[in-house]
């Protein structure tokens, strides 16, 4: 079949006229349709990072703990004892909007493949989700499907889903965000990379058969939505977690030996991206024979095979004399195994099908000469400081607290996490619901703490502060369980980068993230960019989701948020100024969406975080919690709910406006509960480190009481907090 390439076809492949002109120049001829498809897959935003690349390069990615930073399937960090943690977060936004169950499920499947491709056994999954307003017509359906899909895939594979975050905001009505993160553990000596080497080595395809799934999915994931997006439906990929479980076990079994030279999972634009990346990294050529590719349907064209996004597939370069042993492993696991090509020294990507050469393209052009854009950007205008006195205090503290705790932003996410198996593998030491999840490194005392964070309303108001805050909050969540923060993965979700104001958000967030990563010693080791999250010209709030991990040397020295016993003293660590701009109180209670978000003092973050961690490890802290969304009183209430205990609080003399003190979202703060016997030691240590501590009360009874007046019973708060989600979902 000869289709000549018209401008319409070029446009339908998402290539701009000047990009196509570049193709004509380097090829010195017209590409055929298959070749055009290959270019479009390699050069679209999703694979080439053409709008973001110049900015990603500015991010801090190194540190003594980093074994492998961005550029591979996932980032690799040292966790001591000859072991590494391998982790990454990735978006599956558009597919999840179209078909929430399968979109989310295949997102989880994809991120797990990124991790086990590198030789790690996945040990924990997390997810960062953003949905539209609760009262938007599609929201409930999307929540239902996405949560079921994440659970359906992760539960079946048997990797615990231990954490994540969920926001509801009208800004996501037309573009939900589904960001999935996976963490794996490997021996440092057994990490596998995607750089092919050697000439004439077999290129091997394993896993599921190739079908006509998600053809143009990668391009779809980068195309702005419009009213016609419903028509793009048949490109949905269906996940097969059972096959992925087999693939996981077979790959790890193969990797225990020495057969693998290079390995790459097939994700977006499957065979094309994986083959080109392996060849390009090795400076090689690659020959593929499509007649050897296991297909699910008869009559698939070269174009379809090269662009198929069928799930649960991998491409590897093997040592030729280990190929038979490798085949035996995959056959035992009842997976397809086919030698589909070989490495060459030509530097060309040559594809044969039914006796003909259907593509002959230069590898380096495909992989390295993708366009790179220095997109124009305009900074977000600064938001003015919003003083507490411009916002009224509440006259019913209890009702206000219950409204916050029982509303969509802060209500318990139990409805979600109970659909996720969060205990399988037998190493979940801190379950969902705390500041960070903790999974023990199997057969050791070590623990990996993990969290995902970003506060999009801060990023929208002040991108740079918001970027800093996302890292700072992740840092705090790790410190609050007693973990030493190690490294970060990010998932940068934004609108259309061709609009300067959106690009301005992107740049601002990256600057903030970078500054915070340096100050807090948390390099970025992997990540993903998702742009064009807009519908009919309306962009999502800037949402640079951060996934971070930390290390506990001994899981017995871990803190949780739950109040432990009557009489423990409650301290606020860090300085409270009562910053209400962009707080939940200002937005939800006072209806004020303006104002600057709380400023982030990175030196204070570092100092206070290091302090709380050292106090936890020293055994001085009975319970710890960082203060974030909702402020101090909300954090106290969360500790009370977790422990089933109340408290007697008293406003400090220099508290300033009461609502600012109780609901302000000042950064770099924690609550620490300390037994009376240890309080003096903790205070002395704080003074020595110049860390502000304020006594705020003690754990007592079954009610939250402030200055002698009942604020709310813990039991009553619990029902508000627990009921919102199930009641909402039952609709």
């Amino acid at each position, binding site marked *: 079949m000869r289709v000549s390439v018209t401008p319409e076809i070029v446009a339908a492949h998402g290539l701009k006229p000047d990009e196509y002109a570049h193709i004509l120049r380097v090829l010195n001829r017209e590409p055929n349709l298959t070749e055009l498809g290959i270019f479009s897959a390699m050069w679209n935003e999703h694979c080439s990072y053409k709008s973001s690349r110049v900015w990603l390069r500015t991010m801090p990615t190194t540190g003594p703990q980093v074994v492998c930073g961005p550029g591979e399937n996932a980032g690799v960090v040292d966790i001591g004892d000859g072991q590494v943690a391998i982790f990454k977060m990735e978006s599956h936004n558009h597919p999840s909007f179209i078909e929430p169950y399968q979109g989310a499920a295949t997102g989880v499947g994809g991120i797990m493949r990124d991790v086990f491709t590198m030789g790690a056994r996945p040990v924990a999954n997390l997810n960062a989700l953003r949905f539209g307003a609760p009262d938007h017509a599609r929201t409930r359906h999307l929540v239902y499907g996405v949560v079921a899909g994440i659970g359906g895939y992760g539960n079946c594979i048997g990797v615990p889903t231990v954490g994540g975050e969920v926001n509801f905001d009208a800004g996501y009505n037309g573009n939900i965000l589904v960001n999935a993160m996976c963490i794996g553990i490997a021996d440092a000596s057994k990490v596998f990379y995607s750089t092919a080497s050697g000439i004439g080595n077999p290129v091997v395809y394993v896993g599921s058969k190739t079908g*006509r*799934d998600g053809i143009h999915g990668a391009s779809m994931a980068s195309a702005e939505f419009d009213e016609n997006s419903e028509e793009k*439906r048949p490109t949905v990929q269906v996940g097969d977690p059972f096959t992925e479980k087999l693939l996981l076990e077979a790959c790890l079994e193969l990797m225990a030996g020495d057969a693998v030279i290079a390995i790459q999972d097939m994700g977006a634009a499957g065979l094309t991206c994986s083959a080109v990346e392996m060849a390009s990294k090795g400076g090689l050529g690659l020959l593929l024979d499509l007649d050897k590719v296991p297909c699910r*349907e008869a009559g698939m064209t070269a174009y379809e095979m090269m662009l198929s996004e*069928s799930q649960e597939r991998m491409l590897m370069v093997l040592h030729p004399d280990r190929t038979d042993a490798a085949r035996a492993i995959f056959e035992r696991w009842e997976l397809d195994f086919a030698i589909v090509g070989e490495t060459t020294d030509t530097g060309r990507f040559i594809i044969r099908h039914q006796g003909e050469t259907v593509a002959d393209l230069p590898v380096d052009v495909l992989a390295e000469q993708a366009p790179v854009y220095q997109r124009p950007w305009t900074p977000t205008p600064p938001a003015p400081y919003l003083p507490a006195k411009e916002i009224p205090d509440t006259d019913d503290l209890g009702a206000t607290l219950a409204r916050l705790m029982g509303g969509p932003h802060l209500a318990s996410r139990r409805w979600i996490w109970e659909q996720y198996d969060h205990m399988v593998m037998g190493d979940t030491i801190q379950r969902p619901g705390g500041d960070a999840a903790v999974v023990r490194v199997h057969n050791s005392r070590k623990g990996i703490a993990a969290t995902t964070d970003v506060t999009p309303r801060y990023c929208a108001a002040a991108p740079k502060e918001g970027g800093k805050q996302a890292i700072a909050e992740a840092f705090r969540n790790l410190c609050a369980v007693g973990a030493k923060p190690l490294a970060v993965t990010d998932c940068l979700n934004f609108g259309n980068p061709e609009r300067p104001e959106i690009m301005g958000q992107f740049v601002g967030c990256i600057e903030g993230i970078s500054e915070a990563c340096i100050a807090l010693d948390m390099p970025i080791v992997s990540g993903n960019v998702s742009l064009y999250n807009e519908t009919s010209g309306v962009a999502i709030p800037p949402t640079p989701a951060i996934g971070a991990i930390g290390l506990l040397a001994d899981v017995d020295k871990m803190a949780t948020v739950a109040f432990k016993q009557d009489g423990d003293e409650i301290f606020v660590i860090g300085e409270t100024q009562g910053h209400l701009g962009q707080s939940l109180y200002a937005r939800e209670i006072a209806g004020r969406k303006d104002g600057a978000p709380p400023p982030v003092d990175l030196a204070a973050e570092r100092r206070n975080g290091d302090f709380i961690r050292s106090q936890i490890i020293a055994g001085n802290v009975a319970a710890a919690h960082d203060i974030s969304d909702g402020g101090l009183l909300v954090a106290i209430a969360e500790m009370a709910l977790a422990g089933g205990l109340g408290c007697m609080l008293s406003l400090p003399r220099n508290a300033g406006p009461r609502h600012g003190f109780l609901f302000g979202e000042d950064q770099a703060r924690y609550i620490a509960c300390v037994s009376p016997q240890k309080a003096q030691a903790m205070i002395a240590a704080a003074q020595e480190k110049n860390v502000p501590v304020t006594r705020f009360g003690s754990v007592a009874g079954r009610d939250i009481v402030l200055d002698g007046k009942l604020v709310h019973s813990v039991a009553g708060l619990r029902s508000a907090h627990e009921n919102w989600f199930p009641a909402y979902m039952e609709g």
Partner: protein
Amino acid sequence: MKARIHITLKKGVLDPQGKAIANALSHLGFDGVEEVRQGKYIEIDLADGDKAQARAKLDAMCAQLLANTVIENYTVELQA
């Protein structure tokens, strides 16, 4: 009135269940199984007396809830 509804995966959409069933059948020694596709079968008892109305209603039920029209097709049969 009784309706029989069949919901099947669209052509070309991966059917992991069907694939696994086909494998299991061949392990059990059943040869000659070329393809297995699994769908749903739903029986609905309706109070309505009018056939045309019932059919319209069932169609709407399928489109709105019973079938996931992104990946599934459906057929409705009405019995007297």
